[in-house]
C-alpha cells in the first residue's frame, strides 16, 4: 500500500495547481463555484475562458486515448485535475462533459468517437442534459419521451425537466423511448445532437433565484440515426456509464474542503463575546469533525478511482462517494450558517455578508445536490442492490 503519488503525478498536480490558482484570481466577485457559471453572462464568460485554456492544455481529457484528442494518462491524473480545479473553484470542466464522454467512449462507434471526442476535447460543445421528466425523476426508466424512426432520422417528442445549463448550451443529449413494447429499461435510446428547431427551454428558477435548470419541450425534434450513441434500445446503459462516472466525482469533496477552510479562517478571525470562535471548544469540535469528514471523502474518492484503474465495477462505491460528499456539503453549509449566527443568513450585496453570502447560497444549492443526478435515497439503493447484493424486492 502506497499513498504517495508518482513523481509525474506530483508534477502534474503542481502544474494544475499553478494554473488554477492563477485562474481563480480572475473569478467574478462573489464567485461561489461551478454552479454559478450558467447563471450570469459574466460567470459564463469566465467559465468559457477558463475551459478554453484547459482544453488547449489537453487537460479536459487526460485519460482518453490520444487518437481522440486525449493524453493517454490514467484516471488518477484526471482525478487530480478534478480535485485541484474544484478546490480552487475554477470552472474548468464543462457541465455534462464527463457523462457524455464516458457514454461515447464506452458505447460509441469508432466513427462517433472520431466525430465527437476531439470536438469535446477542444471544448467546442456545451451540453444540455435531456434525461429526467416530470413523471420520471428517481424512476428515470418511467420516461415517456418518444423517438420514432422516419427515414434516416428519429423524430423526438416529449418533455424533459432539470435541463441544467440548457440556456447556455448548443448541444443536447436525450434519452428517449424507441420501443414501448420492451421492458422499461430496455426500450430506451441515447441521442446526441445540436440544439435546433423543435427544442424549447423554459427557465426553472432555483430557490435562491439562480437560473441553472430549465424545462425542455421537445416537439418533432429530428435527430439523424448517426447520432445514436450505442445501439438502438441500449440507451439506459450508455446513460448509466456516464452517471456512474459522474457519481465518483471528487470535485464535491474538494470544493467542500475549500469551503471548510474558508469557514476555519472565519473562525480564526472572528470574535464573539471577546473570544475568537476558533478557541471555543464547541466550534473546535465541529470544525475538526468536518476536517475528518473531508479527509475521509477525499481518500475514499481516490480509493474508488484506484478500483477503476483496475477495471473494477465501482457502481456501489461511486454511489457511496457521491451521497456521502453531497450530504456532507449540505451539513457544512448549514453548520457554517449556524456558526455565523445572524451574519450567516445575509446574502451577497451587503458589505456585512461574510464571503458574499456564500454559505447561505450553498445551504440552498446543496439541498438540491442531494437530489440532482440521483438522490441520496437512490444512491443508497444502488449500494444495497449492487454492492451488498440485497434483493430488489
Amino acid at each position, binding site marked *: 500500500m502506497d499513498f504517495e503519488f508518482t513523481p509525474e503525478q506530483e508534477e502534474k498536480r503542481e502544474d494544475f495547481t499553478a494554473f488554477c490558482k492563477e485562474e481563480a484570481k480572475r473569478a467574478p466577485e462573489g464567485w461561489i463555484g461551478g454552479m454559478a457559471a450558467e447563471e450570469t453572462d459574466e460567470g459564463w464568460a469566465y467559465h468559457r475562458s477558463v475551459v478554453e485554456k484547459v482544453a488547449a492544455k489537453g487537460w479536459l481529457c487526460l485519460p482518453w486515448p490520444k487518437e481522440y484528442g486525449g493524453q493517454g494518462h490514467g484516471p488518477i491524473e484526471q482525478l487530480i485535475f478534478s480535485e485541484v480545479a474544484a478546490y480552487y473553484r475554477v470552472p474548468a470542466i464543462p457541465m455534462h462533459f464527463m457523462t457524455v464522454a464516458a457514454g461515447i467512449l464506452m458505447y460509441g462507434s469508432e466513427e462517433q468517437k472520431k466525430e465527437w471526442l476531439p470536438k469535446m476535447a477542444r471544448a467546442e460543445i456545451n451540453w444540455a442534459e435531456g434525461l429526467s421528466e416530470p413523471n420520471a425523476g428517481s424512476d428515470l426508466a418511467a420516461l415517456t419521451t418518444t423517438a420514432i424512426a422516419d427515414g434516416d432520422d428519429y423524430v423526438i417528442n416529449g418533455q424533459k425537466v*432539470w435541463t441544467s445549463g440548457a440556456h447556455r448550451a448548443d448541444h443536447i443529449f436525450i434519452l428517449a423511448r424507441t420501443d414501448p413494447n420492451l421492458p422499461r429499461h430496455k426500450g430506451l435510446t441515447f441521442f446526441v445532437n445540436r440544439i435546433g428547431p423543435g427544442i424549447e427551454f423554459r427557465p426553472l428558477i432555483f430557490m435562491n433565484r439562480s437560473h441553472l435548470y430549465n424545462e425542455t419541450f421537445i416537439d418533432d425534434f429530428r435527430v439523424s440515426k448517426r447520432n445514436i450513441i450505442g445501439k438502438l434500445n441500449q440507451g439506459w446503459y450508455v446513460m448509466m456509464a456516464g452517471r456512474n462516472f459522474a457519481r465518483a466525482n471528487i470535485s464535491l469533496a474538494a470544493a467542500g474542503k475549500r469551503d471548510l477552510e474558508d469557514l476555519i479562517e472565519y473562525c480564526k478571525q472572528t470574535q464573539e*463575546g471577546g473570544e475568537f470562535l476558533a478557541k471555543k471548544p464547541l466550534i473546535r469540535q465541529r470544525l475538526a469533525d468536518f476536517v475528518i469528514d473531508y479527509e475521509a471523502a477525499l481518500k475514499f474518492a481516490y480509493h474508488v478511482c484506484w478500483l477503476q484503474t483496475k477495471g473494477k465495477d465501482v457502481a456501489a462505491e461511486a454511489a457511496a462517494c457521491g451521497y456521502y460528499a453531497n450530504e456532507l456539503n449540505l451539513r457544512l453549509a448549514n453548520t457554517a450558517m*449556524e456558526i455565523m449566527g445572524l451574519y450567516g*443568513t445575509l446574502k451577497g450585496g451587503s458589505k456585512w455578508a461574510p464571503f458574499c*453570502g456564500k454559505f447561505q447560497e450553498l445551504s*440552498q444549492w446543496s439541498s438540491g445536490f442531494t437530489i440532482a443526478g440521483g438522490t441520496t435515497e437512490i444512491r443508497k439503493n444502488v449500494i444495497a442492490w449492487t454492492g451488498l447484493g440485497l434483493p430488489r424486492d
Partner: protein
Amino acid sequence: MGGSMNLDFTEEQEILRRTARDFLAKEFPKTLVREMEEDASGFRADIWKKMAELGWMGLIVPEDYDGIGGGFIDLLVLLEETGRACLVAPFFSTTICTFPLLDAGSEDQKKIFLPRIAAGEEIFALALTEPTASYDAAGVTTKATGEKKGYLINGTKLFVHDAQAAHHLLCVARTNFQSPPEEGISLFFVDAGSQGLKVVSLPTIADDKQNEVVFDNVLVPEGNMIGELNGGWPVVRRLLERASVAKCAEMIGGADWVVENCIAYAKERVQFGKPIGSFGIIQHYLAQMWTELGHARWLVYYAGWLLDRGLPCAREAATAKARMSEVYRHCTRMGVQILGGIGTTREHDMGLYYRRARQALPLFGSPDSCREKLAHEIGL
C-alpha cells in the same frame, strides 16, 4: 389556586385560528408572498389595514387601550397561522415592541401608542442587535447621552427587521458605561423620520426585510424613554423571552405546513409504479418529522403557557427555541428531499419554508446559545 389540566386550545382560540387561516389563504396567497419577497417595503397597506380590523395588532393590547386583551397563547395561535402563510408584514416586529410598552411604558405612552398600534396606525421595529450580533446586554454599544434637549443616540444597529416600514424604532441604547451592561441600558422610541437616522436594507436568505440602522447624533426628547433610566435591560430580557417563544410559534406553523404537504405529496407522487409514500424510507422520514415536531410543539406551548400566566420562563423559552429551531430546519431539509427537484425551485412553496427555517434559527437565540443558557439555568 390549583389548575385543571387541559391540553386543548379554547373554542375562541380555534375560531381565531380558523379565521386567520381563511383570511391569509384569501388575502395572502403564496403568489403574494413571492411578490412581497421582491418588494423593498415589506408592507402592503391594504392588507395591514384588514389585519388591524381583525384585531391582530391589538390582540395583546388591553381592552382599555382599544385592544382585544388576549393572552400569550392567543398570540401563539395567530403566529402559527402567519408562520404557516409565510406572511410578509411588520406584524411580528410591531407585536414584540408592544410588550415593552405594556411592561414599562408610562400611562401617557400607552395612551398614545397602544390604541394606534391596535388600529394598525403604528408600525414599530426593534433596534436591538448590533454588529456584535449578540442578544446580550454586553452586545449593546450604541450610546445615548443626555443633553439639554433630550438624548443624543450614536451607534449602528444591525439585523433590524422592518425598520424600512416603521414609524418608530424601539432603540436599545447604553446610557451608562460605568455600570455592568445589564444596569446601564435604556429604551427609547425614536421617530423613524429623525434627522441623522439612516436605514440601509440587508438582503437575507428569507427576504425578511432586515436593515442596518445608523444612528448619527439622533436627538430624541427625554419623554421618549420607555421605563426607567438604566432600567431597560430587564424589560428587553422579558421581550426576548417572549419574542423567542413567539418565533417558535411561527416555526410550528411553517413546520406543520411542511409535514402536511409532504404527506400529501407522498400520497400522490408516483415513482416505480407506486406512490412514494408507500416506500418504507419515505414513511420513516415522515414518521420522524411528525414525531419530532409533535414533541417540540409541546415545549413551545408549555413556555407560552408560562408566559401567559406571567411565570418565570427563561429556562423554558431557551428549551423551546433550541429545539424548535432544529426541528424546523430538519423538517424543511427533509421536506425538500422528499419533494425532490421541484422542492428546490421557486415554483414550489417548499423553498419558502426552507429559507425561513434557516433564517429563524439564529433569531432571538441560536440553539447553541439557548442550550448554554439552559445549562446555566440548571446550575451547570
